[in-house]
């Protein structure tokens, strides 16, 4: 489609419709309820905590819920919303009008990101509230301990939530790239989860490429570590105490890393979708 100029307004409209559709999906409600339930219930699991402080354990638990259910939401919603349009033939109707395929892809990713943003914000805020109330209870029970001894920095919690959100952005773009090649949403979802695993195991690929004697394995591992984004960079929850010390510069680097990957993956998804026969 080259007859009309590219329009951000059309991207916006597609994104709004996509976000509305995504918010109506059962998967969104399910993962939101489960994640929030786990965050609220983190306190009940403290009996299983043997290594860390109680608040740290609760924070880890909450971010665990955010990671797992956020990943599920991102992959499933992206694949379903993309293939929903193709399977119901609404994409054909839409693309028969003066709408660029790039606008369609960007609108889809924008809509998914809107829902993921709401999910991340709700879970992070709930976690922040839960930690605050537990901290107050602990302070009331053990007034002899200073507040600083048991407090988690709220800005660090928010920074970790933002890092997760950035990761989901890259994951959504990656899933959309896979979907632009895939023929079914099930295939896109399965490959999306495999990619998620590979991206999380990035350090292993680097280790293998550095240590192995086999040139074949070194080549494959080197390619994997080069091609896939490193999702371990976004996992700040384990080092939450040092997030503040890392400073804004590190967070800006992380934003740049995610932003560049998001742009490249999005552009490749547009390129691939442009060459796809519908």
């Amino acid at each position, binding site marked *: 489609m080259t007859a009309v100029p590219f329009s951000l307004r059309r991207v916006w409209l597609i994104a709004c419709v996509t976000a509305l559709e995504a918010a109506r999906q059962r998967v969104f409600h399910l993962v939101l309820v489960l994640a929030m339930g786990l965050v609220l219930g983190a306190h009940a699991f403290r009996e299983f905590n043997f290594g860390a402080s109680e608040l740290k354990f609760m924070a880890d638990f909450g971010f*665990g819920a955010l990671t797992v259910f956020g990943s599920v939401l991102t992959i499933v919603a992206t694949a379903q919303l993309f293939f929903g349009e193709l399977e119901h033939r609404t994409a054909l109707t839409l693309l028969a009008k003066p709408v660029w395929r790039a606008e369609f892809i960007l609108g889809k990713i924008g809509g998914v990101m809107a829902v993921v943003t709401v999910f991340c914000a709700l879970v992070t805020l709930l976690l922040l509230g839960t930690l605050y109330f537990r901290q107050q209870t602990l302070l009331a029970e053990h007034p002899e301990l200073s507040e600083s001894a048991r407090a988690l920095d709220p800005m660090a919690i928010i920074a970790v939530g933002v890092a997760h959100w950035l990761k989901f952005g890259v994951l959504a773009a990656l899933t959309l790239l896979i979907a632009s090649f895939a023929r079914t949403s099930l295939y896109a979802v399965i490959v999306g989860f495999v990619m998620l695993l590979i991206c999380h195991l990035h*350090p*292993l690929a680097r280790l293998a490429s550095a240590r192995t004697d086999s040139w074949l394995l070194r080549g494959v591992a080197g390619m994997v570590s080069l091609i896939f984004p490193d999702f371990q960079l976004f996992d700040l929850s384990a080092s939450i105490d040092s997030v503040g010390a890392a400073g804004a510069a590190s967070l800006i680097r992380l934003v740049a890393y995610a932003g560049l990957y998001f742009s490249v993956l999005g552009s490749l998804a547009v390129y691939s979708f442009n060459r796809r026969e519908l």
Partner: protein
Amino acid sequence: MNFRGARWLVVITGLGLTGALLRWLSAPLLLHRPAADRPDVRAETFAGAMGQGIALGIFGGFRPLVADFLWLQVQDRWEARDLGGTLGHLRLTTAVDPQPLAFWLNGARIIAYDMTEWRLAGLTRGDAMSESVGKRIEAEQARMALAWLREAERFHPGTPVLQIERANVQLNRLHDVAAAAASYRSAAELTDAPYYAARLHAELLRRLGRKAEAYAWLRKIHPKLPPNDAAAAAGLVLARLRGLEADLAIPPRQRYRAD
């Protein structure tokens, strides 16, 4: 090349170029992190844990919870005196979450002390009669515990309690007083070290007959001890100084705080 193949080639080339470009951006992101949370440091233990079906714990974000459940398994195996099972679960626990020091410290104690007892109890009457077999087992377990603590120090560099634990194993299981004294000293010189590490260093030097060194060490640390902190035991250290002054026959004028 067909149409679909060309698409794949463009995508892979695009991602490869992006990956190469972003290496400079991603490398400094790990530098500020504690060693226990650096994926590059953890990669080897990752590899060991992956084969055991606990990927969810590693990449899913529930790492601490999975590690806690694995720690329960350690306790279960420990109660059954299952040496292989306990060691395997200990390794798995710290592979999943190397952050909590409690896992490393208790692991070292289990390896050095409990496992030695289990192995000795499993000896036949003839073997048990042999003192050298017992000593060999004790030394083997101690070295295993020291290797475990070296691994812990990779994740928690400069942590005094790990060095103190190393000194304890060297002293109580390897019976290497000189090595233990050196380890207590390196612990004492770290920030946030407990006061007793410095006292133990001096005590072991005294036991080794290196009383002048012990005296010099205590003279160095005593002025830094807070007088009102019971843990610092400033009075006790002063008493030790006086005892060493008597042993070393130090002239009254040269004694510590002679005035």
